């Protein structure tokens, strides 16, 4: 006998379950009994801008990789609404723990794209505390525990449930459908639940973990996992920026108010390959990708805005701004300083050890032999 396997994405767990949706793929506004998008059309235009910029960053970095300027790039194409929608629900005092794919979140939080990391000149690239944005976690799932611990720290600091909107804070942890299988992620759910921690678990279910379809990770939607740990899980159309914003805002507010954790499953699709090293044609059909193209997260916002009086000029301006952003990114990439191994010896510990000092000196001495010598 063989083990039952269902690998096709149509059979993805919960594919037919209702999602919170506030903007249809055709660009029509929808009502939901519980979740509402508060903003006006100006707010939607602002979200649109962030969506376009996020995509532009992603495309530009992709191109840079193709030109050999980056070693690797994990495209976020198709996931912009989930990222922008959730990130725009964050306040200054909140804190986000991303994965390697959260380029849109980084953009919304004012963090430069992770070019340094993917160029191989840095393992980080920014100061987390400056932006409320942790460094990228490559070990799948590990950072969901960091997010939970940070949230615990917020509780200990007394900045939860005080009622002061500028003070009460929460944490958001980004992770993928594949990550949900990791022990660490489930431990994070558990620690968050028993500590009533102000953390929102934001899962971008983009249907794949590299080549593995979500049906090999779970048999029921991951949103359902939350109830098993004692908190609420909500499924949202991850290609609908209004719904993502509204649901995340509500979840963060609950957390800030002292209402404990929530899990959001943003159902979306990874339009590109896993990374520039991946060949998605080995494991999925072009048809499937086509189908999701029709649900594009940006097109629907544009459709809504256009049919509700936003003028052409707005779109032209945004396009020009995106063009400029692309150029800036290229320039920034080329301007990235090369790392210096000698300096890295100082960064292992807060205080250099004698051992490392010796190794550093030996390295510098060794290297100096070759200085000025063409290799």
């Amino acid at each position, binding site marked *: 006998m063989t083990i039952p396997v269902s690998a096709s994405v149509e059979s993805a767990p919960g594919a037919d379950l209702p999602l919170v949706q506030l903007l249809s793929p055709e660009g029509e506004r929808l009502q939901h009994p519980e979740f509402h998008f508060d903003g006006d059309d100006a707010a939607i235009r602002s979200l649109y801008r962030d969506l376009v910029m996020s995509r532009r960053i992603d495309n530009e970095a992709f191109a840079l990789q193709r030109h050999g300027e980056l070693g690797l790039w994990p495209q976020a194409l198709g996931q912009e609404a989930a990222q922008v929608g959730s990130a725009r629900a964050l306040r200054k005092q909140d*804190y986000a723990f991303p994965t390697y794919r959260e380029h849109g979140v980084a953009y919304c939080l004012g963090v430069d794209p992770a070019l340094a990391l993917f160029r191989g000149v840095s393992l980080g690239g920014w100061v987390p505390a400056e932006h409320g944005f942790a460094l990228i976690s490559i070990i799948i799932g*590990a950072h969901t525990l960091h997010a*939970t*611990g940070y949230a615990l*720290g917020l509780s*200990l600091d007394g900045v939860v449930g005080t009622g002061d909107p500028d003070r009460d804070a929460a944490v958001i942890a980004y992770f993928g459908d594949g990550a949900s299988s990791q022990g660490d992620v489930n431990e994070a759910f558990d*620690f968050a639940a028993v500590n009533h921690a102000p953390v929102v678990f934001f899962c971008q279910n983009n249907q794949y973990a590299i080549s593995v379809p979500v049906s090999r990770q779970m048999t029921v939607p991951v949103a359902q996992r939350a109830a098993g740990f004692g908190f609420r899980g909500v499924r949202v159309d991850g290609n609908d920026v209004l719904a993502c914003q509204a649901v995340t805002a509500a979840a963060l507010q609950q957390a800030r108010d002292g209402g404990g954790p929530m899990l959001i499953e943003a159902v979306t699709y990874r339009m590109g390959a896993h990374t520039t090293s991946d060949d998605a044609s080995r494991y999925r059909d072009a048809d499937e990708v086509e189908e999701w193209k029709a649900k594009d997260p940006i097109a629907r916002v544009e459709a809504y805005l256009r049919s509700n009086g936003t003028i052409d000029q707005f779109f032209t301006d945004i396009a020009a701004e995106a063009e400029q952003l692309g150029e800036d990114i290229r320039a920034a990439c080329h301007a990235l300083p090369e790392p210096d191994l000698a300096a890295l010896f100082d*960064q292992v510990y807060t*205080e250099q050890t*004698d051992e490392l000092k010796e190794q550093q000196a030996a390295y510098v001495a060794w290297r100096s032999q070759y200085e000025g010598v063409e290799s």
Partner: protein
Amino acid sequence: MSDKLPIAKAINAGLRAALESDEKVLVMGEDVGPLGGVFRVTDGLQKDFGESRVMDTPLAESGIVGTAIGLAFRGYRPIVEIQFDGFVYPAYDQIVSQVAKLHFRSSGAVRMPIVIRIPYGGGIGAVEHHSESPEAQFVMTAGLKVLAPATANDAYWMIQQAVQTDDPVVFMEPKRRYWEAGEVDLDSEPMSPWQSLIRRDGSDATLITYGPMVTTCLEAAEAANEDGVDLEVIDLRTLSPLDLAPVHESVRRTGHAIVVHEASRTLGLGAEVAARVTEECFYSLESPVQRVTGYDTPYPPSRVEDDFLPGIDRILDAVDHARAY
């Protein structure tokens, strides 16, 4: 002021002092609350500092260390208890890939002042996974510091110094010595924890050890003394970074080095010490560095642990072997 305290109580007093002196210090782990830990090392701390500063966690070591990381991100200084040596492995990923690397990954922007306390080693008649010596796994990991006190006074001070360190410290507690009492100087400015210490002067050979084996080596030295052999005993105290300068100086005098630890021989700390001592004292060594260690088997049933662990006899045999080389 000084006091005679068993090591477990000395650490307890050190933790108390740490909790008192900095409100960012937290204690967390399994059973550290009302029970005071299975060895009572955290006895009374929750009662006095409250449930927010001394936290019983869910039963998940990765979760404990992982959330401690998040707390450190938020400016806290968590002291994590791993209940027994053999239970640290579920947290190994968080320790080696996160705790150890975040400072480096962030070019110094993120600090991880986390102390991971691990009662380790054998000799207490325990079941499997309760008698292991995993220190080498941490010493080999860049970004971690590793301390291994051997006396009550060191235990008291080094736990406080570990907490004050801005780098992550794996704090190896010699559990079979928990109940051995020693004088603790409660006032005097302590010596740096990052230095090894000659516990006994000698001229015929150098015993290099740490943690629970310090007592054993001192006993061996006493026994050797009766046979007219004068052994120097060096307590490494810090396992990462290693402070081998005193060891090199000693070996240059004695010509013989014997490393002693409970961990198995292959790639135990003795391998590194042997390699470095040989590098530094090549022309002074009259015999190759001897390693007296646990055997290269998993930790055996406790009824035979006394034969598995280095004892006075095996140490003295190694000394004889070296001196007769």
